[in-house]
Every structure is written in C-alpha cells, then in structure tokens.
C-alpha cells in the first residue's frame, strides 16, 4: 500500500510536469496543444539515441534533448499555430492541426527508432534505499527532486519575474495585452518554447524511470489533459496537483484492481470530473457558450 | 386569465445579477394581450436581460414569469417558444449560408419531419413540406422578401436580415413577438416599412414587444412605453405622456 503510494507520487511528479506544460499553453493559447506529446516523445528519444547509441554523456544528451524539444515548439508555433490564429481559425481547427503534428512526429519516431520499447536506464544494478518493505531507487529520488525543482523554477518565473508577468497578462486578457502594447506574438512564442522545454524535461525524467515507446507522447497527452481538467483548466498549481493525483490514482487503482485497468482508472477520473466539476479544483467556472 | 380569454405574459419580482451589478432589480410587469409595447432605456438598463429571462435563455436569480396561469420561470427556451412566444436577437441570429426560405422553414413549429423516423420514412413529410413552404412564402411576402427567398441569408442587407428574423418569428406562429432592436441600424425608408408591418401585426391581434433605442420610431408606433433604468421599470404609459417626462431624458442622458 505504502509502496503504491510512493510509486504513485514518483510517477505523479513526472505527470505533474507534463500537465504544467499543457496547462501553461492552454492558459495562454486556449487550445488543446496535443502536439506537445510529440515534442515530449522526441526529446526522450533524442536523449536515448545520444546516450545509448552514440555514447554521449547524459548532461550533453539531456541538453540536446531539451534543445530539440524547444526548437520543435518554436516550429509548431511559428509555422502552424500563428498562421492559423491570424486567420481566425476556431480552436477545433487548431486542435486538429495539432493532432496532425502529433501523429506525424509519433510515426517518424517509430519509423526511425522502431516500434519496440527502448530503455535509458543504466545497465548496472541501481542502488536503492530500502526501508522495511519499501524500495526506492536513487534514480527515483532524483526524479522527484528534479521534477519538483523544475516546477518551482517554472512557478517562480511565472509569478515573480517580469517575463512571467507578461505571460500571465496575455493569459488573463489577450485583448487588453495588445492594447497596452505587449508583443503578444512574441510572448506566445516564448510560452510555446518554454512549455516545449518543460515537456522535454518531463519526458527525459519519465524516460529514465520507465521505458520509451513511440506511443509515450500520446500517453503524455492524455495524462496532461486529464491532469489539467482535474486541476482546473489554466491553473498551474492545479495542473501540478492534478498530475500528482493521477499518478496516485493510477498506482492506488492498481492496488485494488489488476494493473491493466490503470488507464481506465485515469479516464474514469477524467469523465467524472468533466461531468461533475468541469472547472476542476482550481479553475474558473466554465462560461456557457450561449448568448 | 383575462376577460378576453387570451393568456397574458407577466412577471413578478424578477432579479438578475451579473458580477455584483443588478441587471434586473425587482421587475414586475404585466403585458397586454395585444398591442405594441416598447421597452426603452439607456445602455445597461436591463432591457435585453429582461427579454432573455422572459424567453428562458437566462435564469433569473429570483422572481417568476407567467403566461396566463402557466409558470414559465424554469422552462427551457424551446418550450417557451412553442407557447407562441417568439423572439429576435440583437446580433441577428440566422443561418447565413442557406437561403432565406430555409431559415423561415426552420421556424415552422411541430414539423413531423423533425422526428427521426418520419424523417427516414417520409410519412407525410412531402405534403407537410409543401404546406410549410406555402406558409414560409406567405411570411416572406409579408415582410417583402419574397423575391429574395432563394438568396443566402448572409447575402441580404442588414435591414433585410432583420426582416427575415421577423418572418422567422411569424412562421414560428409567435403570437407574442419579442423583438430586440428591430429598427436600430436600419435605413430610414426601411424603418417606416418595418413600423407599418408591426402595426399590421398588432391589428391581427398580436402582441409586439420591442426593445428599441430609436425613440422616434417608438413614438410613432408604440401603444405603451416602458422605461427601464438600472434594472428597474421607472415609467410606464402612453408614449405621448411618458416620453415627455423629465426623468426619462434624465435616465437617458444622466
């Protein structure tokens, strides 16, 4: 039971980060940025390729992974989202385009790296902390620490810096931001690159904990969406908590149910929230689409 | 129920708040069974909110709406519409890509062809369509758009679109017509035309309620003027009396 709780928290840390990136984009762009899943998977694969196949050190590989992720985000924003936004496309159009990007990236990955599972974990036996029946590897500790750190850094940037203030201003009132002269397109680009880097970081952490498959991007998307819905669309702390909760729900669900029902638990949570409390824990009430 | 046996639209104690400001503040109103009633008042007086509450598109925080003895307070908009209470919107709502006639046809009530099985098997649907088309043409002719029947609603001018929404209300067999700004933004010549139509509709025994900014038009056509300000009804009566009162102009320009 306790082990499940801890595993849940560890997984949740990764999910929380994924969700924060997702929520950030949703808050500012008001679109479901599913392409982020593609960026996420790409970053993990880049790291895997550089370390396992090319023998680079982890630091160089991780930086490269984040760089590639950020660049992809930049491309998606400047080549796809921005033109669509400027032609006043509806959010559904952007969602479909975003989905297209996810499909393309995911299949490119499986084309290049194969459909199979790949692993990033070092071959040596991992040192672990054992307390009674609890078993936590050092890598897992590192994941929790790094993920928490990344979250704290992101929140600090958002809430305590001038750049963060700009981002929140655009998220709050895009129109007014334009009126006071905020270069909204540049802020949006920054958010996109930042969210991509964040997703890349999350991907690399998760990849070290579990394994890589080309479908991992897709998994990140559904966890990201669920966590943001649970936490409240557009709320950063909400998304982070939502991610943690989903990590817990998956692992605790696995305690009572066979492990294969894990995903069903996540979606049950999603549906229950959508139906009973679509604004999530911290979101604002949904505006009705009428009048 | 009134002496003429026609149920009247009335409301009591209506309240509605948006973000702490009162859009409706204890509104009590009983509309006549027929005639032309104009609701006027400055921006933000709560006129459109009142319309939205009467037609079920907004739920009041407190108060009740009745048609005769029938309570409408929590009724869904489509049910209220089926009782013969038709309305238009400020931001003209129409299906712009389809011909004007299709818009009017859509408005016809109780269409058998709107049930799935009859739509699939077409029992009696062609005959019904013929009747509805005649009815639609009749109302298009009434508003003077018969020749535009096959043009896409989006291609019509602004004034014509307003007329088209009126035709929709009539095709929906609205006995009570709630019109939100029927002449605002319309060419002066067309205004006269619309006002004539409203008079004709009144003479047919309908109740026409208009929310309007064009006071000149209201003066010409209304039997009763209701003035709203800050969510309350501040005056009510014949236009010749009410419009001359100093507090009215005060409300407008205050």
């Amino acid at each position: 039971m306790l082990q499940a709780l801890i595993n849940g928290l560890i997984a949740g840390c990764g999910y929380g980060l994924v969700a924060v990136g997702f929520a950030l984009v949703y808050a500012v762009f008001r679109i479901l940025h599913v392409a982020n899943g593609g960026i996420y998977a790409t970053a993990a694969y880049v790291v895997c390729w550089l370390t396992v196949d090319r023998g680079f050190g982890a630091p160089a590989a991780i930086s490269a992974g984040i760089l590639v992720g950020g660049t992809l985000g930049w491309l998606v924003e400047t080549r796809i989202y921005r033109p669509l936004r400027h032609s006043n496309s509806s959010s559904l159009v952007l969602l479909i385009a975003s989905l297209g990007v996810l499909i393309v990236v995911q299949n490119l990955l499986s084309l290049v790296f194969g459909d199979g599972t790949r692993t990033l974990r070092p071959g040596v036996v991992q040192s672990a902390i054992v307390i009674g029946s609890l078993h936590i590897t050092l890598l897992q500790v590192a994941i929790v620490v790094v993920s928490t750190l990344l979250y704290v850094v992101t929140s600090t940037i958002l809430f305590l810096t001038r750049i963060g203030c700009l981002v929140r201003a655009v998220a709050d009132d895009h129109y007014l931001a334009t009126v006071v002269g905020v270069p909204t397109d540049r802020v949006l680009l920054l958010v996109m690159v930042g969210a991509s880097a964040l997703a890349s970081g999350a991907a690399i952490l998760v990849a070290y904990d579990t394994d890589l498959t080309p479908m991992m991007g897709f998994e990140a998307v559904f966890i990201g969406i669920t966590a943001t819905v649970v936490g409240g669309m557009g709320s950063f702390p909400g998304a982070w908590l939502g991610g943690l909760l989903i990590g817990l729900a998956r692992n605790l669900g696995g305690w009572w149910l066979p492990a294969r029902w894990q995903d069903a638990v996540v979606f049950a949570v999603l549906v229950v929230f959508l139906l009973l409390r679509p604004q999530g824990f911290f979101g604002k009430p949904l505006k009705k689409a009428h009048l | 129920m009134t002496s003429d046996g026609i149920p009247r639209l009335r409301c009591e104690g209506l309240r509605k708040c948006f973000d702490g400001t009162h859009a409706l503040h204890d509104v009590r109103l009983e509309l006549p069974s027929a005639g032309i009633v104009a609701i006027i008042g400055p921006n933000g007086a709560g006129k459109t909110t009142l319309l939205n509450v009467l037609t079920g598109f907004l739920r009041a925080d407190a108060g009740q709406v009745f048609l005769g003895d029938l309570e409408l307070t929590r009724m869904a908009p489509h049910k209220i519409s089926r009782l013969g209470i038709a309305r238009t919107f400020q931001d003209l709502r129409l299906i712009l890509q389809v011909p004007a006639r299709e818009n009017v046809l859509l408005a016809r009530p109780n269409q058998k062809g709107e049930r799935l099985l009859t739509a699939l098997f077409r029992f009696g649907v062609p005959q019904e369509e013929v009747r509805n088309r005649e009815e639609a043409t009749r109302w298009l002719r009434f508003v003077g758009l018969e020749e535009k029947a096959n043009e896409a609603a989006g291609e019509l001018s602004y004034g014509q679109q307003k007329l088209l929404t009126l035709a929709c209300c009539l095709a929906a067999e609205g006995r009570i017509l709630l019109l939100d700004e029927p002449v605002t933004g319309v060419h002066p010549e067309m205004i006269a035309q619309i006002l004539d139509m409203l008079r004709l509709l009144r003479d047919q025994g309908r109740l026409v309620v208009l929310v309007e900014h064009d006071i000149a038009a209201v003066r010409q056509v209304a039997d009763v003027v209701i003035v709203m300000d800050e969510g309350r009804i501040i005056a009510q009566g014949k236009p010749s009396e009410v419009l001359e009162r100093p507090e009215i102009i005060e409300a407008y320009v205050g």
Partner: protein
Amino acid sequence: MEYLLHILVLGAVYTVLTVSLDLLAGRTGLLSIAQAAFYGIGAYTSALLVTQVEAPFLVGLLAGVAVAVLISFIVSLPSLRLHDDYFVIATFGFQMILFSIFNNWIGLTRGPMGIPGIPQPVILRWRVDTHLEFLVLAIVLACFAYLVVWRITSSPFGRALHAIREDEVFAKALGKNTLRFKVTVFAVSAALAAMAGSLYAHYITYIDPTSFTVMESILVISMVIIGGAGSLWGPLVGAVLLVTLPEALRFVGLPSAVAANLRQIIYGSLLVIMMMFRPRGLVGKYGFSK
C-alpha cells in the same frame, strides 16, 4: 484481383464509418473521438453472439446496433452538456474507457487475444464467402448508410441539425429541442458505426482491441476532414483516398512496417496541411470555423 477486392471492401467499411461520423461532426458540429469505440461495440457484440450462441449474422448485426445505441446514450447525455474542447475531451475519455473494456474485460472479450473464428455471414440463404460477395454486401451496407444520412440531412430533421451546427441559440429560440436532436444524431451515428464494426468482424473473421483504438477514431476523423466534412461526397472521397493511399505505398515496394508508419505520417501531414490551406476538405463546405 482478390487484393483489389479486399481494398474495395475496406473502402466500403470505412465509408460507413466516415458517413456515420460526418453526420455527427460535419452535419451537427459535434466532433466526437469515440467513433472507434462504437465501431468496436458493433464488432464485439456481433462476434460474441455469433461465436458463443451461434446467432445468425443479421441478429448479431442488429444486436450490435442496439447495444451501440444504448451505450451512445450513456456517452452522449452527459457529454452533450459540455461544449467545444470539453465535448471533445469527454468523448475522448469515453473512447479510452470503452477501449480499456475491450482490452481488459478478458472474461468477455478475451482481451488482447481477440476473438478468432468469426464465421462468414449467411443472410437468409446467401452465404457470403467470396471477396466479391463481400464487396456486394459491403457496398449494400455503405449505400444503406448513405441513404440514412441523406434522408436525415435532406429532411426537416437535417435542417434543424444544420441550425444547431451554425447557431444553437437560434434553433432554441425557434422552439427546437436541440438536446433531443443531438442525442438522436449521436445514437444514429453510433448505430451506423456499429454496423460497420459488425461487417468488419465478419469479413476479417478475427477481431482484437487494436482495431478499435483512439487512433482508429482519429483515422476516421482524418478521413472526414480530408474528404470534406458536412458534404455529400466528402466522406466517400476521404475514406477511399485514405484506404487506397497506403496500398499505393505498398506497390512502390516499401516494407510493410515502414508503410504503416509512412501511412500515418501522410495522414498527419494531410491533417495539418488541410487545416492550414483548406479547412473545408477536398470536396466539403464546412470548415469547423464557428
């Protein structure tokens, strides 16, 4: 020749699917990601009835349709309270839950092992066992689906759907019970998808959950969008194009593993390109541009 017929049968099955989704997404403006789930419900119900209790094909098919309709109410009634992105997410959630049931309720569906040995259909005395006969059956069903959708869209019912897609408030003001229309259309769409699923199960004679994933839903969405949502021929064009395109790749001589990925890459790129340059699709009118 067999091969060509096989492609055509698949094309017809997907046409049923695209037509069913178009009724929902293109005609009514409800972009659902749960279509593959209803496709799966049809396939599983039919396959189970036929293999377990040796029910005839038509009974299996009708039962599949009935189950899909029932479940469509469970999905649509709550989801339809939500709008736009939230509706999409809700249908996505239901798709994933239903897939999870196909995959994990091993007692019923045998999970990932799938259901083998689904007999070929016998309709009255007609034993459908050659590709050509299957093609005839598939085309008959595709025409049936087309007929249903055409009947609906060209009737006053379709007029109301159009109004709901463009301006739900307007429809309500004219006395239309928009929820009833949407729930009905969701059920019809689910029924048609289930019909496609039943046909597919009997054609391939083996089903497993991988045919009913969210990716399958997205594939059907791609077909509708690329062909052209809300139009008569769009679903057909989309289905035929996206079914034949990968086969063309195979002729070029690509190994099948590569072809599978390449196919998806083409779908994905087409989606992006369509959204950017022709959101209404190849032959469509409606571009999700409210």
